[in-house]
């Protein structure tokens, strides 16, 4: 049964702190709405929105007091769970051998306040990638365990958003402890809350609420339904997997490779991209060695280095690898699309390459080929 929070977000923030969580949420820093530790609910980006474009991001003032009136920022929740740099182990020389130490600092107990539906799905996908199957990423698992998630339905998608096409939003899917819908009235926004877990129920018990009546719930549903109609981008819902498999020799890949910088930004901001490399280092004395896991990218030339050379030496092969994996072979590997429609790869590409545009162009090329074949004698 949905509830209405009768006080502002401070009560929820305080309840999370009392429950022992380190609260991470959106806040304005360096000309962007980033995710960072919140010292109080006052750190939330109240009255701030964003304007998004391919290769462009600007914060802007809103004429209301919305705390979640913004869409995807420069980075998802990925760095908190799947960290850019993780020390896997270190070793010291002892006599003729060496001694390995695997120290894992106790990770913070995080509460994520303000997880958008696209990012909620992305966390679920990374859970499957990094914890499913036989080999678990133990550093990820340790940080992921016990994370408290406050999802916030999306009521204002940006110009580069397409979660509705990917079926990941704007309504929060499963996986949250609490899910809010922000209703922007004339005064302070109101928050309708749904409970998704026992932990969520326990935290909400510490927050002043009342039953949300049917009118209010209908209002929340209408806000979210309206957001679905205002997506700035659209991705064809069906046939992407086939299109990716069929298009490997299309001319469009050469065209996009001439614009792509192979800078890796799309993969670094993608909430589902998970690839890492491993670096072994020794110090000057040779007495101490460390092994580090670092974020890597399929756009790195050396990423596909095998004995004899780089498998994907051309920028074309690397862009194609990324897109066909994300939208196509991800299904075969992990049972879903790897794209959640957050649009970050479009915004944070320094040269504004838009995957929805690339897919449309590949589709057009397929249609052209098909009509050419039909027209052939």
């Amino acid at each position: 049964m949905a509830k209405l929070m009768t006080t502002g977000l401070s009560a929820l923030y305080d309840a999370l702190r009392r429950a022992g969580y380190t609260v991470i949420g959106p806040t304005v820093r360096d000309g962007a709405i980033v995710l960072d530790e919140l010292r109080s609910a006052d750190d939330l980006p109240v009255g701030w929105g964003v304007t998004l474009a391919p290769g462009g991001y600007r914060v802007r003032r809103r004429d209301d007091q919305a705390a979640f009136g913004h869409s995807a920022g420069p980075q998802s929740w990925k760095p908190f769970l799947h960290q850019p740099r993780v020390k896997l182990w270190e070793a010291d020389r002892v006599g003729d051998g060496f001694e390995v130490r695997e120290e894992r600092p106790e990770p913070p107990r995080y509460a994520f306040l303000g997880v958008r539906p696209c990012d909620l799905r992305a966390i679920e996908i990374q859970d499957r990638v990094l914890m499913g199957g036989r080999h678990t990423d133990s550093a990820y698992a340790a940080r992921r365990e016990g994370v408290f998630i406050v999802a916030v339905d999306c009521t204002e998608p940006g110009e580069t958003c397409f979660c509705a096409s990917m079926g990941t939003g704007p309504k929060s899917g499963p996986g949250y402890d609490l899910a809010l819908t922000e209703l922007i009235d004339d005064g302070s926004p109101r928050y309708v809350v749904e409970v998704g877990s026992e932990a969520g129920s326990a935290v909400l018990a510490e927050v002043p609420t009342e039953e949300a009546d049917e009118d209010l719930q209908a209002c929340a549903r209408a806000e979210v339904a309206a957001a679905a109609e205002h997506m700035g981008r659209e991705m064809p819902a069906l046939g992407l997997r086939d299109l990716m498999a069929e298009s490997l020799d299309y001319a469009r890949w050469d065209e996009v490779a001439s614009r792509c910088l192979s800078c890796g930004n799309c993969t670094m901001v993608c909430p589902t991209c998970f690839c890492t490399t491993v670096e072994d280092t020794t110090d000057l004395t040779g007495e101490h060695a460390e092994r580090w896991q670092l974020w890597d990218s399929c756009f790195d030339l050396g990423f596909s280095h095998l004995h004899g050379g780089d498998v994907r030496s051309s920028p074309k092969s690397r862009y194609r690898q990324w897109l066909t994996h994300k939208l196509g072979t991800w299904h075969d590997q992990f049972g879903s699309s790897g794209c959640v429609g957050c649009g970050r790869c479009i915004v944070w590409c320094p040269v504004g390459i838009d995957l929805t545009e690339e897919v449309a162009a590949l589709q057009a090329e397929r249609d052209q080929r098909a009509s050419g074949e039909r027209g052939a004698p």
Partner: protein
Amino acid sequence: MDATRPTLAVWKFASCDGCQLTLLDCEDELLTLAGEVEIAHFLEASDEVAPGPYDVSLVEGSITTPDDAERIRHVREVSGTLITIGACATAGGVQALRNFADVREFASLVYASPEYVATLDTSTPISAHVRVDFELQGCPIDRRQLLEVLSAFLMGRKPNISQHPVCFECKRRGNVCVMVAHGTPCLGPITHAGCGAICPAYGRGCYGCFGPSPNWSDGRPNTRGLVPWLDMTPDETERVLSTFNVAAFREEDHELRQPDTRGTDDDPPE
């Protein structure tokens, strides 16, 4: 101390000394380093020079004079492993601006008696003259990278020096992209990583002091793909690409390699 420590020599060619001073800047690790190698030839630290040959040589600076073109051959002969450090040694440095102009004209403007200056028409990297075992980028080089290369040399392993663009380091560091979020021109997407994305971390665009990243295609970055998004005039673009690694940035792009004809008689009056 072990008497069989490898010997280290540091050599200077046309340069500002900033890169070799990075060695002295390794404050916390300097004593450890001095314990692991015998610093046999390092004039910035001591005028006491032990005779060669040397197991490893760090070479700073570019080749700009006939004498230096000879001297680098000698350095190669007395060096086991030769590592070039910095933009001058790896790309010719800012003094390679002469490669695209008339150096005699420069000399006549600067020196009262330019006829006494024996200089070459070009400033060229060490690798244009002798075989180089490893090139470390930067203007100046990064202290951690220098220690990594020396540690790797001592262990006989490959150094962890990535050739991808600065963007990798920027994103790992959690910086907000200055180009996308602020509209600040940034050479990060085409520049060799290694600095740790210092400038973007302080809200500035990258100005390419680690030189072009070979990550995109055929050992080059996609400079022409980036330029239209820098929001700069052609003149501004040429200037930003004409600094410490001017020769390397021009080398990788034919269009940028065209001679500068502005201000000549061929130019129509405005």
